[in-house]
Structure formats: C-alpha cells, structure tokens
C-alpha cells in the first residue's frame, strides 16, 4: 500500500500570526514538504492544480520536475490534473516529459475542477464538464498509446497524423487515477478503463465515500477488469497530530475555525465526528485511518492533506516527521493484515512495464480498442 500527501497549494493567512506567506514562500514550502515526504519514507507526493488565487500550483509538471531532480524514490502525482480545461495534447506531452525526467516515478489524477469561472478562462464551459472529461480523456489515452493519431471530436481542433512527443517512457503511459467527490459518472469512467479511482475523503462523511467507492468497484468488475475487490482505490484523509491529543486540538483549532472550506461552520468536534478528519495523537490517527478499510475495502493508496488553512511550514514538517516515523510504519503493517493476496498493489511504472512485457504483442493495442 502506498502512503503520501496531497497538497491543494492554498495561500492562506496563518490565523495565529495573521501573516500570509508570499507566493514564492508557499511554492518553496510545497517543494520542502515533498522533499520531507521522501525523507520520512512516504511513497507519494501529489500537487493540486489551480488557476485562481489564493492557490499557487498552476503548473504541476514544472513543480514535479523540480522535485523529481531532488528525490530518488517518491512517486510524483497530481490531485488533480484538470482534464476539462487543459488540452489533452499538452497533458500527454507534459507528463510524458516528466516521466522521462523522473525515471518513471509519475502517475496522475484526473479531475474536472469545480469553479465555474475557470472554464471560460480556458475557452470551456462548466456545463460541459462531464462531456469534456470523457472526450479529453479518451483522446489522452490514444495519444499515449498510439504513435500516430487521427482524431476528431467536439471540443478541440481535429488531429491528423499527430504524434505526441516525447513518447511515454518505455512505451508505458503513466497510470491514471480519476478523482471525484460526488460525480458517479467519473467513478464510471474510471471503472470503464480499469483505471484507479480516488476519493478525496475529506470534508465529507464516510457513508458518502463508501457509496462512491462501491459504485466504482461494482462497475470495475462489470467491465471485466477483475473482481470488485481488485479495483484500484485511493483515499484522502486529513490529520493534525501532537503527541498529546489535547495539544493537537488546542493548536489546530484556530486553523480549523478559519479554514477556507469549513471555517466559521461546524465545530472541530462535530467535524471530527462526521468526517475522516483526525486531530489528536499519532495513535488516534492510526486508529481512525484503519477504519477507512471498513467502508472502502482493501485499498491501494492513502494520501493525507496536511499543509492547508495557513498551517506554517515548520508545523507541517513536524507533522510529516510524526507521520513517517510513527504512523505510516504501523499502518503499513496493520493494513497488510488480512489483505487478500489477489488484491493488487497500486500500479507503478515498474509493475506496468512488467505487465506489458508479459502480455502478448496483440495485447499492446488494447488501449486503442478501449478508447
């Protein structure tokens, strides 16, 4: 099972100091957080993509390329890449380039993006969000799997004899997760292609996440990719830890109370009861995270949100120390207990390469027919 962190990249004032980091500080902080993730033994760093203030990560492959140069093991991913407003041609090329530079340590998570005004800035319309996701993703798959593509669709200019460069490393396209909070169509899309499905699993009650994951697993089996239990599921989570749980609650409360997404709404206590948020000791984080398996089944990837709502870099790095040293080693061990042997691990470049090598030459054209 993979563990890591995902960042939204918000620039939010620290409510305890009323200081707002500069964009430069925030961008460098995200990099420092990624490097720390590798140092403490995490597997994945994923950055969001946003094109409006107060967010900074508008160019994920630039950031991930820089992190790739400074790390050796970390899988570099996104949370999410906008399949609706980005040109699929550019996504295909950007991430193939990143794959080469990172020696294959790349996957990505597709998402639609949820703010209406962003769409027209990129020449699109949010009312077509689902249609854009479906068409653009189908084209992206072909661009990674076919050397020369003739294509015509509704949303972008046709392609004739087009070759996206560079070609994916070793001819193996990056593994794709589809992130969705509440659109069953996206769970269906992930299931159709046998791709991964990621639920952000923060801000929402567990029973909602459970329904989305169950839908994806059922449809994954329906499309013949394996049993429901073998589907590739990723979950988010949100934690704040101190050795003493009271210290964690006291320190996190002002950040919680002013957080952009839920601030000035429910109490920290109510929100902790109703959603996967854990504020407390490392042991409490371990216990609550282990309950995710009860509603999502044996899953492949667990990402935590830690650097948002103005929590300062120093604190985030301390959180990562606790996560890497005390929480994740126990979670690795406990999640392995009773895990069926036929439930696969999260696909990596190496595992996909090995699977391609095993497959017959005809099977390599599978992507064309699926698209």
């Amino acid at each position: 099972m993979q563990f890591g962190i995902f960042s939204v990249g918000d620039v939010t004032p620290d409510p305890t100091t009323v200081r707002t980091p500069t964009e430069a500080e925030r961008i460098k902080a995200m990099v420092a957080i990624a490097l720390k993730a590798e140092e403490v033994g995490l597997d994945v760093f994923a950055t969001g993509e946003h094109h409006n203030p107060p967010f900074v990560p508008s160019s994920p492959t630039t950031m991930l390329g820089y992190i790739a140069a400074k790390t050796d093991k970390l899988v570099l991913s996104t949370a999410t890449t906008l399949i609706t407003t980005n040109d699929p041609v550019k996504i295909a090329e950007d991430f193939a380039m990143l794959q080469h530079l990172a020696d294959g340590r790349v996957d990505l998570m597709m998402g639609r993006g949820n703010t209406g005004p962003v769409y027209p800035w990129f020449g699109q319309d949010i009312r077509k969000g689902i249609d854009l996701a479906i068409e653009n993703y189908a084209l992206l798959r072909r661009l990674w799997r076919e050397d020369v593509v003739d294509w015509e669709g509704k949303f972008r200019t046709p392609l004739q004899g087009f070759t996206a460069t560079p070609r994916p490393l070793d001819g193996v396209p990056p593994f794709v997760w589809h992130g969705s909070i509440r659109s069953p169509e996206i769970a269906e899309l992930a299931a159709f292609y046998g791709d991964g499905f990621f639920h952000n699993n923060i801000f929402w009650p567990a029973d909602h996440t459970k329904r989305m994951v169950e839908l994806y697993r059922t449809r994954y089996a329906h499309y013949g990719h394996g049993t429901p239990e073998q589907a590739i599921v990723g979950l988010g989570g949100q934690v704040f830890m101190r050795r003493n749980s009271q210290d964690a609650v006291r320190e996190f409360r002002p950040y919680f109370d002013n957080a952009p997404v839920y601030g000035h709404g429910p109490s920290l206590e109510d929100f902790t009861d109703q959603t996967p948020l854990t504020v407390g000791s490392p042991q409490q984080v371990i216990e609550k995270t282990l309950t995710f398996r009860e509603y999502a089944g044996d899953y492949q990837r667990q990402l935590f949100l830690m650097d948002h709502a103005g929590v300062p870099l120093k604190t985030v790095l301390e959180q990562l120390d606790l996560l890497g040293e005390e929480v994740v080693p126990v979670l690795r061990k406990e999640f392995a207990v009773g895990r069926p042997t036929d439930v696969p691990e999260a696909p990596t470049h190496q595992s996909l390469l090995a699977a391609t090598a095993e497959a017959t030459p005809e099977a390599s054209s599978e992507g064309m027919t699926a698209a």
Partner: protein
Amino acid sequence: MKLVAVSAGLSTPSSTRLLADRLTDTVRDELADQGHKADVDVIELRALAVAIANNLVTGFPPPQLAAAIEAVTSADGLVTVTPVFSASYSGLFKSFFDLIDPGALTGKTVLIGATGGTPRHSLVLEHALRPLFTYLRTVVLPTGVYAASEDWGSGSDAHTEGLPARIRRAGREMASILVARATDPLPEDDLALSKKKLSDLRFD
C-alpha cells in the same frame, strides 16, 4: 401514510408551528375518515438552524439534519409553513429547501401555509411559496392557508370563511389527493431504482 410538516417558526410557542399542527391534524382526521392511518412528523427548522448553516458551509448535512431531509423526501405528503419575512418566506425556510436535492421532491403533494402580522402579506403563498414548490416539481394544492395575527382572534367557524374553514378545506383537499394517489402508486422498475441510486449520490 406518512405526513411530514416543516415549520420555520422561530419563537416558542410559535403561531407558525400552531398553523402547521392544525393543518396536519386536519389532514390526519380527514384521512382517518376515509379509512387511512397517517403518521405525522413535525420538523422544527429552528432546532436545525445551526446544522443548516453548517451544511451550507461544508456541503453535507450533519446527522440530525440528514434525518430531517430523509423524513421530508420520504413523506407521502408535506405541509410547509413559514412566517413572512420581508415579503417572502424566511431565509431559514429557503435554506432548508436549498439543501434538498432538486429532484428529490418531484411529484410530492404539498400543502403550503404562511403566517404574518397583517393580512396584506397573504399573497406570499402565491408569489413566493407556490413558485418555489412548483420549481421543485411538487404537486402544490390549490388551497394554501395564510394566517394573520387577527385570524387567530377572529370569531369564525366551519361555516364562514374564517381560518378554521380554510384549514378544513385545505385538509380535505390534501387528504383526498393523498388517498387518490395512494391507490395509484408510481411503478418503480429496476432502471428507475438505479437512476435514483445515482442521483442519491449527489448532495448538491
């Protein structure tokens, strides 16, 4: 049969709640006369005010609000009563219905009611409540009941056009529609069920 009243009254005791109770009592009695038993559930939005605000902020209902939404969406008939604020339903009343999936009330029988300080606000039923529930694709009864302060003190009985008579007429109307529709259930096949499951996944 399940009858749910939504009262947006803010004081205790509240004339809005009183009107909701009198309407539901009448519907229940009329149903009983026609041989149908009705369970009545009254939802006081006042008790859910913080939960409603939290749902607006976070996007999901806290448990007690989720239970209220479930009660409303699974009811056979809805009685909705709001005080008049600034020539319309109260913000709390609107916020509650804003949190219900737009398709979740389709086809439901709804009796609308409102209370206010003066009879001059009585058209609130027609220019605010009726359009809201029409937008939600409910079947809104022809008779809505508006109660001004003076209505509660005026002498009238079932044979004049006072408040008791209007409550009685609305109650009868609702009971007869509920009974007619109870014997004519909508067919629910597998496809409709699976579509419903998909729409249930959306909280917005």
